[in-house]
């Protein structure tokens, strides 16, 4: 009953008929039903306001520009999210990602939602996601890289792949500039100083890192990425890959060879 009042459709404070219908739908036993019907509905509905305000505040701290740009459209999807599934996580910081996962299949179908909206939302949300990601048991140095072994990254990394250059947009909540439509790949990691940092990658570097993050061996990652992008595996590619990986190592994002398995 409380879940329905909080997450379900809005209920007017004097709409006793709808209240009765919801009580009956919830299977509330008779003494409780009578007590609820006799109660001050405005006080019951306080909980709807409290829950929604708390969740909305948490989301605003994570994706403020997306919410500002979408305005009432965001509220519409917020309502749908609460009504259809609601938060499942005990961690308030993770509710935004749950909402975005809910919206991911819906927004492309809705012509009112700009094509870049999900990229911007994911880009905003990744800051808290990577900033808060738990450290792993493997966040200790391992051996030097080998072509036939996978690579060990720290836990707090993400490869973000966008169709729009949302990372170049202003932080200003009032900015309404439309992002440039272009393939953008960012490697996002948490530095040893706990700062979330972003590196823009070439398409080839992104393709290699995507495979490495999936656990493929270094050599196979380079070969498959080159094949996917129809790039020849030559000395320049090998040298370039080595430079990128060395850079990630210096930044503390790449630890070394993964010891537990070989491809």
């Amino acid at each position, binding site marked *: 009953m409380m879940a329905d009042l909080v997450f379900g459709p809005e209920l007017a404070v004097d709409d006793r008929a709808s209240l009765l219908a919801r009580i009956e739908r919830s299977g509330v036993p008779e003494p409780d039903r009578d*007590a609820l019907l006799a109660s001050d509905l405005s006080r019951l509905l306080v909980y709807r306001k409290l829950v929604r305000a708390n969740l909305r505040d948490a989301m605003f701290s994570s994706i403020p520009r997306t919410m500002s740009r979408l305005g009432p459209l965001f509220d519409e999807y917020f309502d749908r999210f609460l009504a259809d599934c609601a*938060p499942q996580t005990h961690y308030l910081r993770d509710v935004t990602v749950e909402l975005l996962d809910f919206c991911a299949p819906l927004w492309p179908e809705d012509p009112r939602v700009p094509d870049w909206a999900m990229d911007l939302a994911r880009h905003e949300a990744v800051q808290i996601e990577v900033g808060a990601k738990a450290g792993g048991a493997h966040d200790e140095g391992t051996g030097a890289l080998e072509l036939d072994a996978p690579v060990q990254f720290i836990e707090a990394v993400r490869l973000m792949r966008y169709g729009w250059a949302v990372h170049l947009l202003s932080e200003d909540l009032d900015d309404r500039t439309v992002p440039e439509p272009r393939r953008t790949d960012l490697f996002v990691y948490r530095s040893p100083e706990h700062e979330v940092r972003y590196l823009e990658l070439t398409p080839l570097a992104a393709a290699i890192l995507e495979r490495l993050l999936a656990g493929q061996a270094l050599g196979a990652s380079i070969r498959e990425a080159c094949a996917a992008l129809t790039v020849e595996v030559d000395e320049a590619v090998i040298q370039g890959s080595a430079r990128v990986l060395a850079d990630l190592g210096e930044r503390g994002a790449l630890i070394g060879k993964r010891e537990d398995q070989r491809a």
Partner: protein
Amino acid sequence: MNQPPAEKLSGVGLGLRWEFLDEVLEGPPLAVAFFEVSPENYMRRGGYYPAALERIGDRYPLVTHGLTLSLGGTTPPPSEYLSELRTETRRLKTPFHSDHLSFGTFGARVFHELLPLKLSGESARRVADRVRQVEDFLALPMAVENITWYAHPGAQEMPEADFIAEVLHESGASLLLDVNNVWVNAQNQGFDPQAFISNLPLDRVVEIHVAGHSRTSSGLILDTHGAPVVDPVLELLEWTLERTGPVPVLLERDNEIPELSVLLAEVEKLRSVYERAIRKKEARLARSA
């Protein structure tokens, strides 16, 4: 479980918030007896905040106060959540863990808010069972906190004070008495807060919370933790401490958080209340002896 806390807290503490965490970490020692933290903000998390909290734990006693155990929920909390909570309470070396006499989940859905329980014997026994299970899992004494509530979800079968007493009796847990919540409920529901507190087993109180609140246009008082503690709540705190003796008192501030110096001034004010109440209690004991 149900053993008394190994390290007894006393004095006036402050709820640790990220807005002033750096100041606590980098500044000189503060006149704060302990800090209280919500473990959910640090559990299953890496990065700056858990690292900072560990350093604060080297300088000040910490006590954990949870938000999402949903002690009155019809389904138990997920085992992963409990495991993380156990890891965190051990990491922070809290003498006990507290959470609220409320529910915050319905099936898999999590409200992230404290919803009121039906005040009935059945509900009290369910909460007590859950408290015992959590205590056993955490291997840590538990305290339960009375909440502010604005509506009762059905037919109320017993007074709230009796409900709290029954949960404590059945579970063996301690009480975290939120004096502001009692006062707010008393105003909203029209009862005498001192009579309410007199009906509680005050020998089970291990901590007291105070906070500020706000009033809506309809006159309803909301427990917002967004304002200084008002004088009537300070008076009720003093009256309560005269009866409980020197249990630790915590200032909560979660919204409209001012400069740390403002909060420290409020802690100082609470300390005056605390010391005056303890002196009065000791004087009364001396007279009766």
